[in-house]
């Protein structure tokens, strides 16, 4: 940083810093080593200071990409991702990314430039009320009015983003605040009078939960994104085995419980497995860990888990009893709560569970025999086959990001996730164009791991410009395009529910992805026949740089099982 002025105040020495310097100092104190962003007039002062630090900057090609990349970085590494964009259009371009992070409770901090405070409200050039725009899709946001408040607000932003139920926080930085200067006092601790998240579960609730578990004949565990955010995998496995309960997961919870475990049921919900959906209808106790019972999970709410008493563990009290009535609500951190519950169950006599559970687990085996995740691989490549082959070749060890639609569902169904933080997808918002920039973020977090974006030809084009970003920073992301030349998921709905009227879902002018890759300086590969799938995957995955693998797949393939929207989740279309 540039020469600080030293001034005396009350006998102590305080360094006078500019707003821009305070921004970078706070980022360094928070351990930030990379920023995803795009420069502009309102933030040029911050960029001018940024180059003097050792913080890395990834210049994206569109600000939406910056937010998704920061989001992917966070989901893969658990560290808070940071974005820096300019005012006006720079800020508005971040909105989809912020909304996606908000729906999935991902802690990121978005710094936006703003016109000088005396111009705010004057329709100045590149002015937009981004704090107003993002109020409903951020956990919290700030407009910094005085440089004196800047250090405190930035510190608060990081604290709020990570604590409790995490979420995105936006800080709007007017140009005069960034250029102004003030004596800098490091802030050690953040205290917010009105914000005290509950981490410790209420001690009265745990024995009640334990009692229900002891009574249950057909228990089942349902995990969601909260189990991953709170790092509850270990405790979750302990509980499942201790009480011999099978485990299903929402889309957001994939990886929290290993897909290779015999107690694994698979994904639940609209495109859930037969056995997971059937189990939820038959179980007499449902232990929900860090889920919010979205409509895609429950189907018709009145028919969801009709025979079960429900224990709902979540850090956010507003998630509990929002959609589903619950017998035992437990507000607290999922990991802490499960650990305490496990410890409590250790002191109880649970009896011969293996014997007791046999009828229940046998029943599940029977459902498992109804193999619903199947497809027939004939002369045209089936998208499911590509994902299955990918899983086989990578041993299920890659970090997988997805776009949104059929590609997302096939990735969740046919890739076996054994570790948390390896399945990165826009679950709540369902934001097409998420997967590729998120893969860039994940690759930045783990330069040596294999990061694969499973995409469709529709979604990948929504942020295809980030190819240049991946090339510039030598990020060897692998893109798999399941290319059916249409918007597959909507086409599927049109096929099933709209008499095959394919209104505007046909992508007749899809680009040649191989030549597109080459235009960016990357490698492009194509497979048009099933026997080419494995060789293309092997060749593409082993290449040390950015690769697009274009798989020309069956156009009219549908994602099954499928529960029509609003139906009970046991009403599955199987083929």
């Amino acid at each position: 940083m540039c020469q600080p002025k030293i001034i005396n105040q009350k006998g102590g020495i305080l360094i006078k810093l500019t707003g821009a310097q305070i921004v970078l100092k706070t980022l360094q104190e928070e351990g930030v080593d990379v920023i995803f962003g795009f420069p502009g007039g309102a933030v040029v002062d911050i960029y001018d200071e940024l180059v003097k630090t050792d913080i890395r900057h990834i210049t994206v090609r569109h600000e939406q990409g910056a937010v998704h990349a920061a989001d992917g970085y966070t989901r893969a590494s658990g560290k808070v991702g940071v974005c820096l964009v300019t005012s006006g259009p720079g800020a508005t371009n971040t909105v989809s990314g912020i909304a996606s992070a908000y729906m999935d409770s991902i802690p990121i901090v978005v710094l936006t430039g703003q016109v000088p405070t005396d111009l705010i409200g004057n329709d100045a050039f590149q002015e937009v009320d981004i704090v107003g725009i993002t109020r409903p899709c951020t956990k919290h946001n700030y407009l910094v009015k005085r440089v004196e408040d800047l250090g405190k607000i930035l510190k608060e932003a990081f604290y709020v983003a990570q604590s409790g139920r995490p979420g995105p926080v936006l800080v709007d930085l007017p140009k005069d605040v960034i250029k102004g200067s003030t004596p800098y006092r490091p802030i050690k601790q953040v205290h917010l009078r009105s914000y005290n998240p509950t981490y410790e579960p209420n001690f009265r609730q745990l024995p009640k939960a334990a009692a229900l578990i002891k009574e249950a004949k057909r228990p089942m565990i349902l995990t969601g994104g909260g189990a991953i955010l709170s790092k509850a995998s270990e405790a979750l496995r302990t509980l499942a085995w201790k009480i011999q309960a099978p485990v299903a997961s929402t889309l957001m919870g994939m990886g929290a419980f290993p897909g290779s475990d015999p107690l694994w049921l698979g994904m639940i919900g609209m495109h859930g497995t037969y056995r997971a959906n059937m189990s939820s209808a038959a179980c007499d106790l449902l232990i929900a860990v860090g889920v919010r019972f979205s409509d895609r999970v429950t189907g018709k709410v009145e028919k969801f888990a009709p025979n079960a008493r429900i224990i709902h563990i979540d850090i956010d009290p507003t998630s509990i009893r929002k959609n589903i009535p619950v017998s035992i609500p437990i507000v607290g951190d999922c990991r802490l709560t499960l650990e305490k519950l496990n410890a409590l169950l250790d002191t109880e006599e649970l009896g011969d569970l293996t014997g007791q559970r046999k009828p229940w687990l046998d029943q599940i085996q029977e459902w498992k025999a109804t193999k619903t995740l199947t497809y027939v691989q004939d002369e045209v490549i089936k998208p499911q086959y590509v994902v299955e082959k990918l899983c086989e070749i990578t041993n299920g060890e890659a970090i997988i990001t997805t776009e949104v639609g059929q590609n997302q569902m096939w990735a969740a169904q046919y890739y076996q996730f054994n570790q948390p933080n390896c399945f990165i997808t826009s679950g709540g918002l369902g934001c097409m164009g998420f997967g590729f920039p998120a893969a860039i973020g994940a690759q930045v977090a783990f330069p040596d791991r294999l990061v694969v974006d499973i995409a469709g030809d529709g979604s990948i084009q929504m942020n295809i410009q980030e190819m240049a970003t991946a090339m510039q920073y030598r990020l060897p992301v692998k893109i798999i395009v399941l290319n059916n030349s249409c918007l597959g998921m909507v086409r599927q709905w049109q096929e099933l529910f709209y008499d095959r009227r394919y209104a505007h879902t046909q992508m007749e002018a899809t680009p040649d992805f191989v030549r597109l890759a080459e235009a960016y300086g990357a490698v492009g590969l194509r497979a048009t026949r099933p026997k080419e799938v494995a060789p293309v995957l092997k060749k593409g995955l082993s290449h040390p740089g950015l690769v697009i693998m274009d798989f020309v797949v069956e156009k009219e393939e549908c994602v099954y099982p499928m529960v029509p929207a609003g139906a009970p989740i046991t009403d599955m279309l199987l083929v």
Partner: protein
Amino acid sequence: MANEKDKRHILSMLVDNQPGVLSRVAGFFSSRGFNIDSLCVSETHDPLISRITLVAMGDMAVLEQIKKQLNKLINVIKVLDFTDVDYVERETALVKLRAKPEHRAEILRMTDIFRSRVVDVGSDFYTVEITGDEGKINAFLKLVKHMGIKEIARTGLVALGREKK
């Protein structure tokens, strides 16, 4: 909008005295299609804290959810619901009435009966200040309506819970 399940709720919130807080609070109601019937915001004895008193009609379950989510807002310190507790409520209205010569005496009589007072007077109008609960103000308005109301400004309801005696 209103149906039988709907109930009148008086919510009283202590919030940080900062720009944007009111918008966050009001946003929860508007995004769920709730109309806010009355809203009153002012600083408390602590200049860092404001009190928002808000009246809304709505389904009990949905309002429970809104209350939980209001509590979750970083700038909201406390949310009280006066729906089923003992409380005192007051509202003030300024009512500008047409004062035809034949009505002038009656307006003054009404003003007297309702323990309100005339705060501004002209050749053809009276402005009456009336304070009370919502019912009292509505009763007054009903009685003077036929004489012609030119304008009304109501403060919106304020309320405080009663202490245990």
